[in-house]
């Protein structure tokens, strides 16, 4: 269902402007830690968001427990459980937290998933070697952030 809406929107957008362009990590506008517009200009896919919570550069459950993902083993305890997180935060706040949690929670241990500057001894992924490429890629792409946010807004308890 969500998929169908997503595709429909994309087509509608493509009709008006040429194509939705992603907001660059350095251009994201935070207001009190929240980000009100979609970073990719597209709706997120909650199913892919759930996959990202577990795997790859997301790996959110390394630090967070999520009941909705209880079929996956080994949820972490470093951050708070994310059950009911959509009751506590708006979509814009969740987008801000996922894009750069340090804007919402000063000094938090949560990594900044859509930031590309300001790192100390940035490595080349998990090789232990120095990063040497031209352009630093954020941990998650604009669309991946949207997918994760789309998943998080489904986590309601009330």
């Amino acid at each position, binding site marked *: 269902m969500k998929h169908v809406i997503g595709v429909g929107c994309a087509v509608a957008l493509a009709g008006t402007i040429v194509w939705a362009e992603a907001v660059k990590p350095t251009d994201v506008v935070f207001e009190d*830690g929240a980000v009100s517009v979609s970073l990719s200009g597209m709706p997120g896919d909650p199913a892919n968001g759930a996959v990202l919570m577990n795997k790859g550069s997301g*790996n959110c*459950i*390394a*630090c967070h427990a999520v009941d909705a993902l209880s079929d996956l*083993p*080994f*949820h*972490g*305890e*470093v951050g*708070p*459980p994310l059950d009911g997180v959509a009751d*506590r*935060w708006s979509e814009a706040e969740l987008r801000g937290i996922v894009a750069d949690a340090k804007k*919402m*929670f*000063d000094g938090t*241990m949560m*990594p*900044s998933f859509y930031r590309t500057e300001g*790192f*100390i*001894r*940035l*490595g*080349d*992924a*998990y*090789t*232990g*070697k*120095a*990063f040497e490429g031209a352009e*630093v890629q954020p*941990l998650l792409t604009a669309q991946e952030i949207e997918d994760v946010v789309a998943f998080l807004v489904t986590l309601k308890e009330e």
Partner: protein
Amino acid sequence: MNLKPWMAAAVIGLAGSAFAQDDSTLSIDGEEFVTETEAPAHLENVSTIYSGWRFRTPETQALQVDDFDNPAMIFVDQALDLFQQVDGTEGKSCASCHTDGPEEFAGLHAKMPKVVDGKLMVMEELINTHRQDAMGAEPWKWSGADMQAMVALIGLQSRGMPMNVAIDGDAAPFWEKGKEIYYTRYGQLELSCSNCHEDNYGNMIRADHLSQGMINGFPTYRLKQAKLISRHNRFRGCIRDTRAETFAEGSDEFKALELYVASRANGLDIETPAVRQ
């Protein structure tokens, strides 16, 4: 930053984390070990220090209780052979000069790293200095099997003694540098040693139960890798996992870090060679 309901819960959770290590007591061959004690005075954010042994599963813990079950002891036996083995241009073995055997080194590990003639020295360097200068032999690789077996053999001579490295005098500038590294948030994940081992010990991070990251049991035998792991190799792994450029084994940075991390364990008994998952 707004205070949200989970934060109250998180504070309680954190308070609880200080008790998340287990209550087991470690004795090896009838001798009791201090695996928990008051933190040394220089530690600002932690009141009690714990050996990593306390955070491991009962199955892993059991392997350290009896030397016959401890897989690291095979390597210690190999090091005993190496100690006798002639190598290098001088036609000598360690035993040619150290005629009382490795027992001569009892207590040394508790004070390592230490400053010698203005230079911070760790055990691997003491050993390689002797291989090169006294024996005319090739230096061993830092995390190589021979080197770590010898480090374990010398460390074993201090087992059951409390860690007691000096952090003042000549050692002070190295210690300060190590402390700075410990609290620096490296890499794309921006995580410092303290984020995991000070703020979150007792908590699970994915499948791992976080300890205080102590080195009183090093070199440790890691079941996953089926070999002895050096301190610097462990540091490297932890920094690499933050998506950072690590420091090299044997680098000035890791030596300073080793001194600082060792000093965080001052008061815990040496368990070398410990067993880990």
